[in-house]
């Protein structure tokens, strides 16, 4: 049990007064971000990233990941009390959570949501603790072709498995990869796609793009909607908490199933949104009385929340082990790693033990502290929604500007942020997904380097991507996933032909 010893070491790194304070600050900010309209997990993390620039990497990642856990918890509050999903992954929580609140069982629903979030995260963190070191030590043997194959797999699975129109995912991804290449070429030192502009020489910063795409565009989108809201005030008493927890073992099948779905979808770039819906739908399908779902059934809260959190947490597994983020927020954390001078990838486990195990330990601790925090302070956070959006919106704009400027101290980045805000607004409205763009922008340079190094090694022979069993199977899997919808249809058709015709 080497992992266990290292984890204990991680807790030792973590249990200093300063880190614990940062953790609380992160959680509170995160719940804020999750509750407020027009802010979400990814932009919350992106905007608050500059705060961490002067910290040491361990404190920084602890605070940022706590913002992330907080945002995950916060999404549930607005879904249940106001029928407004603060995040896309909490949409499924509103189906049964809001009816429960209408029946005066808001406290019960909130307890259920927080508890199941906690369980989902815990399962995913356990998975990370034991699986991530194994994957990363395996990946240490990877050469450039293997890495390129893994990047290819990530990109292809987005295209093949995503629910958006395929060409829109391809547009988003290739645009991200292209923009990642702007500026000085890392191999030859030549300038690319700068068109003589001195500002573009530095390249397009990933975090600036993210702040614009998620922060500014979200404000624009939020303003389009009617912002009036009516919700239930709720406070949670210890009695309710205990009664929900007492009933918990009854729902173990739902909890286990949702945790499993969440972990699976979190590791593959499918995301928390798909996981929460799948968790909910499966719970409904396997229930004895499916028609009672949607009318305030506690299982309808357990199922999506467990899955969403398990997936949100396990998205960090590929980021830690391979340097490939499983979600938009993980991509931003990855961008943070680079700012703090760490090189994401399998070497992280070898070279920065303190950092990695501190982060993993903070996942355990952050979730425990987070659960206690939200259970006790729900009324305060719910009342944040009384603050009019006209006050919140300009503050978010200012925070975005501070975040964008702080990264490189460049005024140009402020304009870039504004430009990306408009792009994000238009893209979201016509259904071009932003997650592939984010991922491509953060991985672009490393994917290109891996590709060029493999090509140099093989003297331009593409067969290098099938040169051994490992790289060959990853590349083949990537191509299969790319054409997955077509293959699925084909298999279905063959299956239909073979099935005997019913009389």
């Amino acid at each position, binding site marked *: 049990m080497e992992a266990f010893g290292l984890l204990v070491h991680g807790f030792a790194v973590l249990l200093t007064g300063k880190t614990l304070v940062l953790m609380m600050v992160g959680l509170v900010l995160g719940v804020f971000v999750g509750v407020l309209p027009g802010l979400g997990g990814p932009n919350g993390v992106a905007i608050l990233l500059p705060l961490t620039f002067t910290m040491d990497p361990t404190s920084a990642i602890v605070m940022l990941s706590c913002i992330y856990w907080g945002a995950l918890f916060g999404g549930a509050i607005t879904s249940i009390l106001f029928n407004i999903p603060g995040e896309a992954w909490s949409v499924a929580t509103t189906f049964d959570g809001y009816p429960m609140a209408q029946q005066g069982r808001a406290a019960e629903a909130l307890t259920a949501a927080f508890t199941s979030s906690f369980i989902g995260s815990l399962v995913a963190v356990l998975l990370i603790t034991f699986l991530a070191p194994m994957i990363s030590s395996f990946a240490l043997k990877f050469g450039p072709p293997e890495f390129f194959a893994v990047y290819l797999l990530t990109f292809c699975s987005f295209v093949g498995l995503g629910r958006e129109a395929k060409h829109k995912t391809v547009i988003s991804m290739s645009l991200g990869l292209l923009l990642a290449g702007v500026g000085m070429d890392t191999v030859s030192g030549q300038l690319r796609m700068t068109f003589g502009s001195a500002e573009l020489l530095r390249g397009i910063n990933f975090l600036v793009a993210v702040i614009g795409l998620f922060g500014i565009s979200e404000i624009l989108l939020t303003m389009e909607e009617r912002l009036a809201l009516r919700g*239930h005030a709720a406070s949670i008493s210890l009695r309710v908490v205990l009664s929900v927890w007492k009933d918990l073992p009854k729902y173990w099948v739902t909890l286990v199933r949702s945790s499993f779905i969440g972990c699976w979808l979190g590791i593959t770039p499918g995301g928390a949104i798909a996981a929460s819906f799948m968790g909910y739908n499966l719970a409904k399908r396997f229930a004895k009385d499916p028609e009672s779902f949607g009318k305030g059934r506690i299982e309808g809260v357990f199922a999506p929340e467990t899955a969403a959190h398990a997936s949100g947490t396990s998205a960090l597994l590929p980021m830690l082990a391979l340097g490939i983020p499983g979600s938009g927020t993980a991509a931003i954390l990855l961008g943070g790693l680079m700012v703090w001078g760490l090189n994401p990838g399998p070497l992280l486990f070898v070279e920065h033990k303190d950092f990695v195990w501190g982060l993993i330990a903070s996942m355990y601790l952050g979730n425990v502290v987070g659960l206690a925090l939200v259970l006790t302070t729900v009324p305060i956070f719910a009342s944040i929604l009384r603050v009019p959006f006209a006050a919140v919106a*300009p503050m978010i704009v200012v925070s975005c500007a501070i975040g964008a400027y702080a990264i490189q101290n460049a005024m140009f980045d402020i304009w870039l942020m504004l430009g990306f805000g408009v792009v994000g607004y238009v893209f979201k409205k016509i259904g071009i997904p932003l997650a592939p763009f984010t991922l491509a922008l953060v991985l672009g340079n490393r994917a290109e380097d891996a590709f060029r190094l493999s090509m140099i090694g093989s003297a331009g022979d593409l067969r290098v991507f099938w040169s051994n069993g490992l790289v060959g199977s990853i590349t083949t899997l990537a191509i299969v996933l790319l054409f997955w919808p077509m293959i699925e249809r084909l298999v279905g058709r063959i299956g239909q032909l073979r099935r005997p015709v019913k009389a």
Partner: protein
Amino acid sequence: MPQRSLFAMSQTDLEIVVEDPTAPEDDSPAIVSSGTIEIVVSLLLLALAATLGYDNWRTGISWDATGPEPGYFPFYLAIILGGASLYGLIAALIARRAAAATFVTRAQARRVMAVFVPTLLFCLVMQFLGLYVASFLLIAGFMRLIGKIALWKSLLTAFLFTAIMFVTFDIAFDVIMPKGPLEAAFGY
């Protein structure tokens, strides 16, 4: 006494109610359809792909002694982007007659502009007066003019928020923001 009733409300289990007096009307006419925007975006992306593709071709897309030239990888990406945009353009042109979903209504556009224009002004003003003064103006102005919130509340909120940001970033965390004449007068 409105103050007391508000206080009493937060004590009981009553609903939290927030009104939105300037919400966009539901029956507002559409300005532009999603199909049209898709066509415009596809054309813009196609132009971008062509520009970037040309620039990379100019940089060099073939092989030299050391391996692929710098333009090699992005050139093919530009081709992929161009291809996908072309597909999107054709798909949007074909679907245009069938469906014309609304991209934005007039009322929505008015509200979006109500945030976008102040944000644009904020970015402009920041260059001359520094971030903190611009923030104060943005928050106070937005709350007063668009949110119709009482002047003293707007000014107080703007001042407090800006002050907290200044202390947090410039003093506590050493993240230096652009500053203008006002900060200079105080010696920062």
